[in-house]
């Protein structure tokens, strides 16, 4: 094994790239869960975003246009979930699982003509001065715009939930929808909007995979990233800052195991490939063993203003 072949600068830089899709999907799902809704369809919305974003980027030649289309596609798919769970009161778990299946099937249908094509990808930003810094410049300051937007989004979500009245209402709805309803808040409307936001974020995350990370379309390319995003929300105890830590940890392990494989580590490849998932499970077990950790009290409970 040749650990010397692993460059720290490249490693950190690629961790940021590899963590971004999960970060986007997880921060969106966190907002959804904060509003008291459990949407297990993240994987389906991600892969739909991936294929739609890819198709629009290839046809228009503009990756930014692809991202916008992916966000809209994710939101559109999630609106089906919102309609079913918020108005027709269907079971959230079953509906979410269904959404994932629909997304996987839909994406392979849409994606058939696009297999094997290379998409236009996002240019690296050359942030003046900062990106010229030695080491740190290449590590942190020469990425594409979505990496920075995803970080900005985490800060915005954190500030929104902590400091704004709308954020307080969203948390209140997730905490006790009966109380929120009694005080006159529109529980279903708040949840609907949160679900759309979560869908859009998942779509963006998927598009980042197919437009930047890989960048091409292959069937089933999210490979469980949506499930990891769901796990990271729990791992993060529904806090924006910890979502960032969780996503970067997962991204870090993913990249590191790739590097270890390339460096010829004396560990079975299958085990290395599975390691990010294994470590996610381990961390979740450790966190859960600590007991209560701040899940919104109304999470996944259906609400109907009947009483």
């Amino acid at each position, binding site marked *: 094994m040749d650990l010397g072949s692993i460059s720290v600068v490249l490693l950190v830089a690629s961790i940021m790239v590899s963590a971004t899709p999960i970060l986007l999907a997880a921060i969106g799902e966190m907002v959804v869960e904060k509003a008291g809704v459990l949407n297990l369809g993240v994987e389906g919305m991600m892969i739909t975003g991936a294929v739609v974003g890819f198709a629009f980027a290839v046809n228009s030649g503009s990756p930014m246009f692809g991202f916008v289309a992916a966000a809209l596609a994710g939101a559109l798919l999630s609106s089906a979930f919102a309609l079913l769970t918020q108005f027709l009161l269907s079971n959230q778990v079953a509906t979410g699982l269904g959404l994932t299946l629909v997304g996987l099937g839909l994406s392979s249908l849409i994606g058939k003509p696009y297999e094997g094509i290379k998409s236009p990808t996002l240019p690296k930003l050359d942030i003046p001065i900062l990106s010229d810094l030695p080491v740190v410049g290449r590590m942190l300051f020469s990425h594409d715009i979505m990496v920075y937007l995803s970080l900005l989004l985490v800060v915005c979500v954190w500030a929104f939930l902590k400091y704004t*009245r709308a954020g*307080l*209402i969203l*948390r*209140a709805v997730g*905490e*006790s929808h*009966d*109380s*929120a309803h*009694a*005080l*006159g*808040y529109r529980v279903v409307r708040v949840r609907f909007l949160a679900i759309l936001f979560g869908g859009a974020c998942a779509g963006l995350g998927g598009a980042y995979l197919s437009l930047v990370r890989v960048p091409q379309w292959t069937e089933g390319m999210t490979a469980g990233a949506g499930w990891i995003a769901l796990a990271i929300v729990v791992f993060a105890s529904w806090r924006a800052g910890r979502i960032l830590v969780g996503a970067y940890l997962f991204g870090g392990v993913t990249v590191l195991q790739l590097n270890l494989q390339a460096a010829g580590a004396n560990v079975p490849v299958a085990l290395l490939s599975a390691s990010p998932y294994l470590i996610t499970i381990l961390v979740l077990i450790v966190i859960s063993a600590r*007991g*209560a950790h*701040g899940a*919104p*009290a109304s999470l996944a409970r259906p609400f109907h203003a009947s009483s």
Partner: protein
Amino acid sequence: MADTLLSITGLTKAYPGVVANDDVSFDIRTGEIHALLGENGAGKSTLVKMIYGLVAPDRGSMRIDGAAFAPGSPSEARQSGVAMVFQHFSLFDALDVAENVSLGMDDPPKPGALAARIRDVSEAYGLPLDPHRLVGTLSAGERQRVEIIRCLLQDPRLLIMDEPTSVLTPQEVEILFETLRKLKTEGTAILYISHKLEEIRTLCDHATILRRGKKVATCTPAEETARKLAEMMVGSSFATPVAQSRTRGDVLLEIRSLSLPAPDAFSTPLRDVSFAVAAGEVLGIGGVAGNGQDELLAALSGERIAPAGTVALKGKDIARLGPVARRDAGLLSGPEERLGHAAAPNMSLIENGVLTAARRENLVSRGFIGWGDARRFAERVIDAFDVRTPGPGVAARALSGGNLQKFVVGREILQRPDVLVLNQPTWGVDAAAAAAIRQAILDLAAKGAAIVVISQDLDELMEISDRFAALNEGRLSAARPVAELDMEKIGLMMGGAHDMEVAHDVH
């Protein structure tokens, strides 16, 4: 003082299958405390929801100060000066006091200014509160203060209070009444919902009584007897439970230094609980909700296994046995929550009977249920306890609260327990059914069973128990004969007024 603030004319609201309010009319004057009296299901909640804009009436109208008042949402009601303190608190455990208050206001000030105003108002009305405490950590009395302060910050002209005293100790009730009287002198009208008649007689200027959705009367409660008010509520007279003379036998159930950690973050641990109950005796256990009642029931019924040597039935240690083994040994129990704990809501009364009586009544042989026997057992319960139901095949959730409660209590009593533990046996049950259940408890004790009744209804405990003990933060006071007790002593046993005076001195 005599001018009308809110005038209600002909309010009607029907839900599928039931008319919740039928042509209800009455007036509330400025600066009066007006009681709204009625049994569960009489339509009190629907009426106040219409005043607070949560439910739109089918017919009828309301006027405030002579101007038409038809709130489409709670926010519109608040703008007209109507505020409401909810029965099941409209609070958010994971948010702090200031955030909770802010959510109940339409135009909240900046967080810093709001915290200062919460402090000011809470001081002015003798309801001390720290704006930055998490609501989940507050006692029931403190949680109610959050609700009241949320209302007071909006200078309401009409304050609606839905069963405010059901979670308070007698001392806390006194403090609440002081606050309400102070508000009254400032010209705030209060609509006070309760079914505690003595309270209403001491506090309220007028009372409107509802029965099955219709207004029965508006009267001056101080001029009526509690008995008269109760009969107006129920619509007929009913028998008060009578205790037969009982002889105290051997100790059947003995708890020795029982401690159990809290099962989760919002529960209470049991701390060194000891008591003994003898044959023919009823032990009443009181206390404010959330002080360990559910945890004590679980430890006695066997839902939670206790440390060896802490629970003895007829001298034998049963602490390590589960519910089935304890039932076999003669200890039966009825938990507080009817739907979901004492009975499975979607299962029939026959099936619910089998769930606890299968072994004691031999309803199962070789793993197969004997449905004929099961049906006869359910029918026996229905007959003996006057459960009003179309038949034993009806789902438990289809019964009214009082009838289902009679069924679940009767189901245990007919199994001839040696020891019976009940939690809130008459919670949310109409007066006639409550009287029947209390009579059944007394009759069972007269036959030589030892009975533990956990309840938050002090009047009930005074009526049926021989001895009384209070739970406070998971500790049980020494049991004292009921004859020696008055409300003040009981209040002190329950922990008095939680930190009221102490907190007052801080700022």
